[in-house]
């Protein structure tokens, strides 16, 4: 028996220990919630209980009694709109949703950084979320926050905002990323080229990590969910052995199913690296992003004798081999880029964020965050599809997705 999580007694059996008070209240609340889901709420004027749940799910903190009273007189949509004005929505809800995207361990317990701040800012300002991976944009602290200035070689500004418990809704300001970081405009790719992203995904390795985590975080598609052994392997680099341990069967049945699509995509990052002093700063905390226009990073050529006949990266051109095969189901925007190819991270970001999978991923994630469940019925699936369509046609407002999800999941209370 978990403390505070009592199960209902069954068939007259009794628990050996008395029910803790918290558990009693919890159980009561659950039962009450169940009762109210059976009731049909007025489609326009919501109840105070529905208002409370909407506010709780979006802001994560309770509304005041006055706020609940006000919301109860209006629509669910208006209540949700009000909840998104609570600073806690940005400081907690959006931040904690975005934080795992920004580090290799995918932990939510990571300091605020420029990647997370940019996501928060874009939600606050209703910046079309389909520019997340391509725009020349970044969010930094305003002067009133009284924190250290942005630095390419540390995270002090954002950690100070953390320490100060700063109201992120108030103190984040939109900036031109290239002006802040010094990257060429053409080299910016939204959150992908923030310092935190570079620290997590350009540090060491072969830059394939940036592709994998971007797919995972923004298309909800980790590599093992999008294998396709039928894609041509011509762009797989030399460092991928075609005969692991002397068995090319492994390559032909396993390695190829990811690398054939991944390597031509990860080529978009060929000019990026994360530079740090290995001896003095082994964790790379004081490192910074590096961009070498026109010059492929040496990491693209490591272990080049593993398969000398492999692909030698000449530039940062990329090709989306998933335009064909089973992963064409990710819904690529062919009209926006008929060739399915391009050069550099910015155009790759556009390719990814233009896909249906990108929109669906953001909506599904918010749905789960607000409804506390993955889509579990055909009605849920229909709702997610509807919200995805609205997301795409309505200017990619992620804030509106929170609102729509809260309205849907609290209806009928």
């Amino acid at each position: 028996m978990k403390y505070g999580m009592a199960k209902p007694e069954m068939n007259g059996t009794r628990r050996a220990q008395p029910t803790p008070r918290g558990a009693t209240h919890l159980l009561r609340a659950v039962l009450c919630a169940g009762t109210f889901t059976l009731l049909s709420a007025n489609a326009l004027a919501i109840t105070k209980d529905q208002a409370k749940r909407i506010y709780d799910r979006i802001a994560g903190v309770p509304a005041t009694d006055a706020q609940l009273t006000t919301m109860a007189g209006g629509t669910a949509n208006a209540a949700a709109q009000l909840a998104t004005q609570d600073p806690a929505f940005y400081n907690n809800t959006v931040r904690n949703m975005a934080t795992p995207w920004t580090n290799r361990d995918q932990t939510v317990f990571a300091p605020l950084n420029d990647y997370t701040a940019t996501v928060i800012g874009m939600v606050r300002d209703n910046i079309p979320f389909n520019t997340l991976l391509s725009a020349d944009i970044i969010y930094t602290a305003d002067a009133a926050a009284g924190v250290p200035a942005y630095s390419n070689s540390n995270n002090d500004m954002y950690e100070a905002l953390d320490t100060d418990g700063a109201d992120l809704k108030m103190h984040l300001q939109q900036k031109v990323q290239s002006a802040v970081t010094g990257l060429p405009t053409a080299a910016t790719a939204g959150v992908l080229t923030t310092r935190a992203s570079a620290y997590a995904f350009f540090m060491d390795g072969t830059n394939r990590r940036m592709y994998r985590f971007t797919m995972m975080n923004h298309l909800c598609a980790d590599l093992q969910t999008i294998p396709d052994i039928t894609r041509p392997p011509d762009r797989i680099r030399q460092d991928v052995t075609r005969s692991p341990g002397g068995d090319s069967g492994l390559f032909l049945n396993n390695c190829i199913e990811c690398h054939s699509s991944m390597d031509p995509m990860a080529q978009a990052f060929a000019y990026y690296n994360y530079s740090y002093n290995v001896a003095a700063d082994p964790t790379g905390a004081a490192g910074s992003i590096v961009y070498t226009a026109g010059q492929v990073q040496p990491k693209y050529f490591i272990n080049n004798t593993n398969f000398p006949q492999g692909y030698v990266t000449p530039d940062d051109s990329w090709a989306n081999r998933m335009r064909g095969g089973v992963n064409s189901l990710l819904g690529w925007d062919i009209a926006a880029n008929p060739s399915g190819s391009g050069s550099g991270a910015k155009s790759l970001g556009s390719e990814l964020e233009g896909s249906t999978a990108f929109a669906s991923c953001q909506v599904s994630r918010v749905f789960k965050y607000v409804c506390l469940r993955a889509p579990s019925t055909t009605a849920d699936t229909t709702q997610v599809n509807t919200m995805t369509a609205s997301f795409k046609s309505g200017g990619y407002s992620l804030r509106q997705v929170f609102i729509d999800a809260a309205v849907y999941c609290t209806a009928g209370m």
Partner: protein
Amino acid sequence: MNFKYISSLRLVGLGAVLSLAVTACGGGGAPTTATGATAPTGSANAYTGPAAATADVQAFAVNFWANVRVQNRCGQCHNATSPAQMPNFARSDDVNLAYAQANTVVNLQQPSTSLIVTKVSGGHNCWLADPNACGEILTTWISNWAGASVGGTGTQVQLKPPPAQNVGSSKNFPASTANFQATVYPLLTQYCSKCHAPDAATPQSPYFASSDINQAYQYAIPKMNLNTPISSRFVSRMAVDQHNCWTVCGTMVTDAGVTTVGPASSSAGIFLAAIKNFAGMVPTTAVDASLVNSQALTLAQGTIASGANRFDSNVIAKYEFQTGTGLVAYDTSGVDPSADLSLSGSVSWAGGWGITVGAGGKAQASTSSSKKIHDLIEATGEYTVEAWVAPALVAADKSYMVSYSGGDTLRNFTLGQTNQNYDYLMRSSGSDLNGMPQLATPTAATVLQATLQHVVLTYDPVNGRQIYVNGVSTNVTDPQKGGSIANWDDTFALVLGNEVSSDRSWQGLIKFVAIHDRALTAPQILQNFNAGVGQRFFLLFNVAATTGVSQGYVMFTGAQYDSASYLFTSPTFISLDSTVKPDNVVIKGMRIGINGNIPTVGQAYSTLDTTVTAANYTAAGQLLSKVGTVIAIQSGPLTDQFFLSFDQLGSKTHVTTEPTPIAIAPSYPPMAAAVGVRTFAQINATLSKLTGVPTTNAAVMQTYTTVQQQLPVDPTLESFSSANQVGIAQLSIQYCNTAVNTPTLVQALFGVPSITSAVFGATGTAAGTTTVSNALAARVVGTGLTSQPPAIAVSGELITMIGKLCTSSACTTQARAQAVAAAACAAAFGGSEMLIN
């Protein structure tokens, strides 16, 4: 084979540098040194005839004639006396006459194609059990002769057109799923659907066990081979990988090129039977007439390209592992005595030449035959160990690949592996008898990769030990330079894949090992690395009819890569008609076909889009792509027949269409509870909002930092644990304690101006008890919310609790009263009224 034409084009070595001159062999190359102590084991009378007339005769005498004229080899018959079998190149009376005869049976430009080699390899009086081993030894002797004569730059390759063959018929997957559904599909749904189905608890792609038959078929096709069912992935996954078998997995054995699976009742056997059933229902059909194809050929119908350009002049033991069957791997160095290796334990022959060493396996020579290694190296005071290996593991501790030793504590030299480092142990005047301290590649460099690598250890007194990987020095410096190896022991044995004491097991693939009695120079090592390993062929795919280019071919360098695949590299458009200069030949979407089928996997040239132009065409042809690819073996290297298929070749086109992918129907988890819990940051913010204590308060921040990761991370009820509740209790106590001690917050939170010693009364029955309880309850429960418990009920619980606390310890001091107030606060705010989201 019908060689209608032998091109004057010759490829020099593996670099495929073409030359029009017949006799020029290319310049440069490393200098050669004849191996000194190559004493045949058979009896041969001391030579008393005329001296060698020329330097080439001398090279012949030292490298070839001295080895073959003995009685237990060619000298038994091809002698000058009896039976004086012609050509008597092994005659012992006159080396110059023997030389003249030998020139009729050797090809110094391409030793492996010499008549004497092909005849002996074909079974003509080999003095060993394996005719191929004799052929390799003869090749080595001829190569050494040629190297000594012409500078060792390598052999010449003459391109030979393959016979004209059209693409054969084959079995192709039917569009209907009916046969699949009746044969293989039931096995998949019964045994694989717990993972390989989209609605599995933990779905694992590919979904060939999907409940949607169309989807399952789509994913299953690449895993089945209708032409050679035993090559199906479903079969090898059971028999080789032992992957989740539902009964005994079964085994797959290849012997003398024939692969079998057994027993029939095993998982692999059952799969094989089902796929055979499926294949039996599918008729053999002619190749699609609409395809734009080349003509076809097998690997053996290509022009041999391997064996060129190695520097082997000082080799004293060499293993190429070509036998492919039995328990002996022959030493083909040609230096007697042959230190042949006996295979024991988990050692199997690998396709494309090599042995696969499993846990506990080893290949070991006798101590007597190994003695030559000691003797010859002691004579020069330097040596080289060269190997092509593919480690199966990158986590290994003191695993030995090549060792010349007497046990785990006594050795002359050893090439070993520790994780991703190569280790080099060697006995010398600067080491102990176990060859320690060892030399190793740097850990950070992770030089050792689980792929085929060329590893070379060298030693000479000046430079000490050196380690080269893939032709490049690892630049590790030997602290024992200047030592001596005079203390080597001649009673040790050469062993591969383990220690002679069998306690240093190494796992992986060994494709080649050579020991030289000289320290190879860096250029020589690079030369041997570039020469590669294994037998390669120039495969000429005839496209003359389609392109209209006289004797036009797309030429690949092809080889059996390992037991599972072929390697295809350097596709080149070339005409063997030297008067032709092709122009404007469009080549798009090239695919490699096998046995009438075009595999879906590994088609690296399907994106090819290029044009052969006169401007880019040279005598060596026009390279179409720099990348190589591997294509899965089907029936085996002896019978697999290859062809090329094109989306466009010249003016002829074929539109390749991909199957339309089938969308995966959504699967649903069990319906979760409609409510959940606040997560860590939400709890922190909520407690701050309820108490009025800012989250930045030092005390609460410290507690929050401590318990942050103990608080709920997942908002679902199902994941809530008692540890979460403990963390919530700690944090709420800290918030409430801080609030109690913050006078400005007391009135709003507790409903009283201050928490005095009188607020609860001594036993908790004063009016303040109800006031405080009501205030806390109202704050956490709110008003008018039917989803929350009644405030009066919560207040009642708090009143009872305060009473109990003041009864157990009288609330007569302010400190006690504050403690009780904080406890009531924490009880109210740390419960489900706050937590439920």
